[in-house]
């Protein structure tokens, strides 16, 4: 039973199924392009991110500025490109932090049950309740202001719901016959979790991850209002969107393009996520 699904063929099968899913492949392509653009930004950005033209001010999209300019006469395309570096990095890294902690915490808590579960979940309750703004301000005082801290701070709040959701799923699966059977057979606990429990909660994990990424990207802008993370003239999607709202009647493009970029990323992520879920579905594998 265990050897029948050895890793290499599992992943190969999954990839084969994924590559047949057109929407998922489209999502993957868009994301690859996004990440490449972000990486290549310093070389391909049409303008310097700090270059201003105060006399020009905000202008709608034109030949010189494809996506228009903001109130400082800065090129919006350049800002979005540079912003993607920050937002994608924060989105993926902070989510990875949240994902790792959340999934581990939730799985262990849900699988172990009893007192361990109680202590772990009450810890989650405590962390939910602590005043977040004060927590961030304190973090900055203790550790200074840097990007690493930004990931930490975001990861610190975002893993909590993930842990709750994963625990809920694991609790349900733990009582199923094949898990009980595996326990009776004396398989090591870590193997049961990795081989049998995790694959079954993967779908929900993937969905919640795709929900977390945009949330994290937007949370970053709140943190930069507190002084953590990026500062002008650097920009991020979250910041561009929150400033875009203020001027949406006067300069709608300043809201539209950053929001559209974020939406495009999210749609791609979702298609990819759904595709991955289908591809990795253990039940599909036995069909």
């Amino acid at each position, binding site marked *: 039973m265990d050897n029948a699904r050895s890793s290499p063929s599992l992943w190969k099968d999954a990839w084969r199924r994924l590559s047949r899913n057109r929407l998922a492949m489209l999502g993957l392509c868009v994301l690859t392009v996004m990440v490449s653009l972000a990486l290549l930004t310093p070389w391909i950005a049409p303008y310097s991110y*700090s*270059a*201003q033209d*105060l*006399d020009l*001010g905000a202008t709608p999209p034109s030949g010189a500025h494809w996506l228009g300019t903001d*109130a*400082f006469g800065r090129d919006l395309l350049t800002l979005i490109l540079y912003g993607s570096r920050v937002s994608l990095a924060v989105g993926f890294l902070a989510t990875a932090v949240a994902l790792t902690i959340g999934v581990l915490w939730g799985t262990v808590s849900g699988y172990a049950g009893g007192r361990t579960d109680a202590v772990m979940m009450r810890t989650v309750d405590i962390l939910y309740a602590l005043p977040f703004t004060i927590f961030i*301000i304190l973090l900055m005082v203790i550790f200074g*202001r840097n990007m690493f801290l930004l990931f930490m701070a975001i990861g610190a709040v975002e893993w909590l719901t993930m842990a709750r959701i994963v625990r809920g799923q694991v609790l349900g699966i733990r009582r199923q016959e094949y898990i009980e059977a595996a326990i009776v057979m004396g398989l090591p606990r870590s193997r049961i979790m990795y081989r049998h429990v995790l694959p079954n909660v993967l779908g929900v994990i993937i969905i919640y991850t795709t929900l977390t990424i945009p949330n994290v990207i937007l949370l970053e802008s709140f943190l*930069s*209002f*507190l*002084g953590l993370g990026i*500062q*002008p*003239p650097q920009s991020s999607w979250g910041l561009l969107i929150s*400033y875009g709202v*203020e*001027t949406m*009647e*006067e*300069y709608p493009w300043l809201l539209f393009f950053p929001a559209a970029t974020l939406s495009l990323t999210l749609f791609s992520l979702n298609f990819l996520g759904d595709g991955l879920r289908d591809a990795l579905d253990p039940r599909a594998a036995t069909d």
Partner: protein
Amino acid sequence: MSDSNHKIVNRLLTALFVLLASACSLNYESNVESGNRDQILHLGNGDEPQELDPHITTGIPEFHIQHALFEGLVAKHPKTMAIEPGVAETWEVSEDLKRYTLHLRHDARWSNGDPIKAGDFVYSWKRALTPALGNLYAYMFYPIQNAQEYFEGKLDDFNLVGVHAPDEYTLVVDLKAPTPYFLQLLDHHSYFPVHPPTIEKFGAFGERGTRWTRPGNFIGNGPFTLKEWKLNRILIVEKSPTYWDAARVRLKEIHFYPIPNGSTEERMFRAGQLHITERVPLEKINVYKRENPAALSISPYLGTYFYRFNTTHKPLDDKRIRMALALSINREQIVERVTKGGQIPAYNFTPPDTNGYTPRARISYDIDRARALLAEAGYPEGRDFPALELIYNTDEGHRSVAIALQEMWKQALNINIRLSNNDWKVYLDRESHLDYELSRAGWIGDYLDPTNFLDLFVTNGGNNRTGWSNQRYDELLNQAGMTGDQTARYELLQEAEAILMEEVPVAPVYTYTRVRLIDPTVRGWEDNILDQHPYKYVHLEAAE
């Protein structure tokens, strides 16, 4: 399956449509319409008032309300800000300008009908000077003989403080030194009287946070009195029948709305919910200029927007560097393109025409000289210049100015400035502990006198916050404080200002303006540089 889905979707859509259609047919009267009919002014008022006690608060929202609820010994003309009689009908000033004898009008009444006595003012000012109360504006009393000593606990007997009531309707005030602006202080909220029996009824003499300012408990002496106060929602004042000048008051009520967000406030104005807003969001100013200029009101405001330099920090301890930074600010461009609210570029610290004083010394916009100074100080073409950090508190306007300045300095001097956004309290903490390099700052005058601005930068002054110290400057301000003659006094201050503009511990950027949206039906709301609008002159007139 899909049939039932269709049904559900259809039903949902129908419900939504009915909901919207019924909402659409709701035809409610806007605040402005009903207000115009009933003489009720609807006013956006910034933040929720912290408190209404005139001896505790310091904020502008509270001040707006207190001006409706209380009246000082004197008042101000709504347009010229010239001193007018308030509770005091007449007054005399002694030859040496150090004794003021004020005669209270006999028809002045508290809102419960009690007559206002000179003793009430002695009581109130003693209360304002009680340290336990924590009056942040206690220093406003320092021109009065022994007031500072009493407040600092060096003196226990309030009888030694220069305020006495020889009879029920006479108040005598003795000053430490001639203070040409003293009458203006009497219109400041810290000098407002409180009703002694009410204070005593709800707490001890010097007790903070008692319930005397709640509706029902409150007794004041202004043209309006407190009717309703719902936290974070609304504060309503209504016309006071006992006010001595009640015949002049035409508004029946004023509704103050605490609206912390400018965009929300602007939308409420557009929907006819407000007559007057507290401010206008930056990006909306040009829209109103273009589409509804009649509603946009821009008036000069007694305040300076500036940047502080930490003069204890290398390389800002070198005045050539500070000067280079100050010289390369294109102020015209900042007010035209960034702040957009008609602000006036500031080339000196005290705003122009502050009670007849306009500073002569000025710095300029001169990039060539700035570059030369930077080179002279050891950084030709900005080479090896350390990346300085500029701190500001979270605010759209501060951010915008900082972004523009950052690029101006980069272009003019080839130096890099890092911007650092801070939450308000951290920003204050860093600035007052000199834990910064450059910092944005602003100063709003409380009264019309240049010392209100120049006093900031005396050595170790609490509001100096630059580490800058100049002996001659201190002497000049000290001398000015003892001089009664305005011309001679202003000459001393001109010299001080010249020192300030040569040493540049601060770089002035612009003189503030007050930008508001005002419905055209509002009458008697005059522009003035103190942004004070005595409500007894205001009324509403619906357009024909």
